């Protein structure tokens, strides 16, 4: 019997591509023969926009990259400019950055895990994680005034100090959150159907993970212990006691599970940072008009999706000559096409969800 493959456009308008992302699937029945990811539908030219803004004015745009963890995006860019100008950030500001950054990481992972449960078909997990993410957003709103696009970081520090009402709120959250994690474990992780769907699906070998320059939970899911916060501690991360959760199989389940474990670790960091929070200024002495010396600087941070890097070139004027961002989910996506081959349509969704992309960041 003569059979032939057919092409299926998965996206850009598809509920499970986490935004406007397209995968052109070559299918043999339900089995994927070839998968071609087509990013770019959300391209806004942030790097180019940055060239027409002053150094400080770029910060609100970095928010719009990974809008699930806007604080971390701010941080990457700000760190690069600080490196370029040689600004010493006050200690209190560093701690505040760690706290809001880790809260952002939890918020981002909550979306990743919840949306993943939704991708697999269990919509209730999605609602549960969003319910708890709301607490984080409330706290970040108290601090920065916005719920998603914070623009809270400033070159040389942060915009404002913690308000008084933040501390009881975060204390309450720290008490409550471990039980929420248990709930996700019970509802999603422990569910046999979920495990059947995700275990041994979309396996990334450690070699492939390194060769494709993957980072973040996707890399650690393959069992490679590389977390910027531990490997090359930036800011004040060397002062906290936390573990880097690792997977062993490199399958979708490991990548998912690492995010749940990382949330617990992030909570530990927040707890320790709040205890150690020193007094002092929150902004370094920075001139009103920023004119970094001609040159370039590259800074990396561990964002919730992986290594987020910012490369800033200065020509001595108040506007950056060139800004480039290394967006982790874009680079993690590079392996998607190979990863999907041989799996079913439903697995494509599972694999894509486990990589946890944010289209704002992929297309930038």
């Amino acid at each position, binding site marked *: 019997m003569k059979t032939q493959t*057919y092409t299926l456009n998965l996206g850009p308008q*598809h509920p499970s591509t986490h935004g406007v992302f397209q995968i052109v699937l070559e299918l043999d029945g339900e089995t994927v023969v070839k998968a071609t990811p087509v990013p770019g539908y959300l391209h806004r030219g942030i790097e180019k926009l940055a060239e027409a803004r002053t150094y400080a004015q770029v910060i609100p745009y970095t928010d719009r990259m990974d809008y699930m963890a806007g604080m971390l995006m701010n941080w990457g860019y700000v760190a690069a400019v600080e490196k370029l100008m040689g600004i010493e950030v006050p200690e209190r500001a560093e701690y505040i950055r760690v706290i809001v950054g880790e809260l952002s990481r939890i918020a981002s992972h909550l979306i990743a895990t919840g949306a993943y449960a939704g991708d697999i078909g*269990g*919509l209730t997990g999605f609602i549960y994680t969003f319910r708890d993410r709301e607490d984080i957003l409330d706290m970040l709103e108290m601090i920065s005034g916005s719920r998603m696009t914070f623009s809270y970081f400033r070159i040389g520090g942060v915009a404002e100090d913690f308000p008084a009402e933040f501390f009881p709120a975060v204390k309450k959250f720290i008490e409550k959150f471990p039980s929420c994690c248990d709930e996700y474990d019970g509802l999603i992780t422990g*569910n046999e*159907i979920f495990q059947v*769907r995700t275990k041994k699906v979309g396996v990334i070998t450690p070699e492939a993970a390194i060769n494709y320059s993957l980072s973040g939970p996707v890399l650690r899911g393959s069992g490679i212990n590389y977390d910027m916060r531990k490997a090359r501690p930036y800011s004040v991360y060397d002062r906290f006691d936390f573990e880097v959760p690792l997977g062993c199989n490199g399958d979708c389940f490991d990548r998912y599970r690492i995010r749940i474990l990382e949330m617990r670790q992030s909570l530990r960091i927040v707890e320790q940072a709040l205890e150690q929070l020193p007094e002092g200024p929150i902004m370094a002495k920075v001139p009103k008009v920023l004119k970094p010396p001609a040159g370039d600087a590259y800074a990396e941070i561990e964002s919730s999706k992986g290594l987020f890097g910012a490369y800033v070139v200065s020509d001595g004027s108040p506007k950056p000559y060139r800004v480039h961002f290394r967006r982790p989910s874009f680079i993690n996506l590079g392996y998607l096409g190979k990863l999907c081959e041989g799996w*079913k*349509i439903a697995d494509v*969704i599972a694999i894509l969800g486990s990589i946890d992309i944010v289209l704002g960041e992929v297309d930038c």
Partner: protein
Amino acid sequence: MGENIFTGIASGLSGLLDGAGVPVLWNDVILMVVKLVAILVFILVNALWLVYMERKVAAYVQCRIGPNRVGPKGLLQTAADIGKLLSKEFTWNKYWDIVPYILAPVLIFVPPFMIYAVLPFGENMAAIDMNIGLFYFAAVASLTSIILWAGGWASNNKYSLVGAMRVVAQMVSYELPLVLALLGVVMLTGTLNMSEIVYAQENVWFIFTQPLAFLIYFVAGLAETNRTPFCLVEGESEIIAGPYTEYSGMGFAMFFLTEYASVMLISAMCTVAFLGGWLAPFGLTFIPSWLWFFLKMYVMIFIFMWVRWTYPRLRVDQLMGFGWKVLIPLCLANIFVTGVGMYIYRAIGW
């Protein structure tokens, strides 16, 4: 109290027609039409209510409130939705195979409706008390797959096509365990008549004598009605409602309502075959039999919904593997054990 409300109405109507001098044949015909219309109205109203119930259960499970704006406690929400869907434009697309495309949502309601005609909703309350009721149920229920498949095929959309193929694969594979699970009950009772199956449970419900068959029936029922964890046919997150993708307005609403009609049907069948039908447990006979039937049916429906809003979805090959490699051998084992058990009981003269 209320026990004979419906049978009373029927016999009253019959007597009224008799008194008016209507011939016996016409009397029966009119009575049958009235009964069937009553069932149709019942299904439609119930399907509307079930959509509301599903949304409420989903909301409560997800710590939300659910619909609460239209009508008291949001009770009229589905009615409003249907009103909206009815008023929608019928879109036209030259790539559709228009005849099956239009026929599918029209016909989809027929199989459940045909089965409801033989369901005993209470003592003496089956519209048609067929002596091969169970067989009829199994035969007619599988018709749904053809209609869904036709709709998916006619849509000329790859997502619909994949969904339609899944419908056929899933329905055929899960029809078998469904029927084989019921076979255990049939072996115990020795009849295919639903009323007699219910009467056979007077001492003990078959859920206790056939627990495995009940479980298999429940799982296969989930698959038959395309409910999570077997909602591959719709698979919102992968093939976006499958065969329904191209449908809008009332066409979609018909599919949607039929899903609830079949959920109700599977639950009703479960009540008849395993939960003692209209029989009152613990001698609580002051509650009318039909109320018992609905109570049991709604408990089953609630479990269906509860499961839906807890579990994720299986993959298509796992679904087929589960059906053929787990459920069917289990069914056969159950039939074997039932047969041996019956033989032993008979040998010891029970």
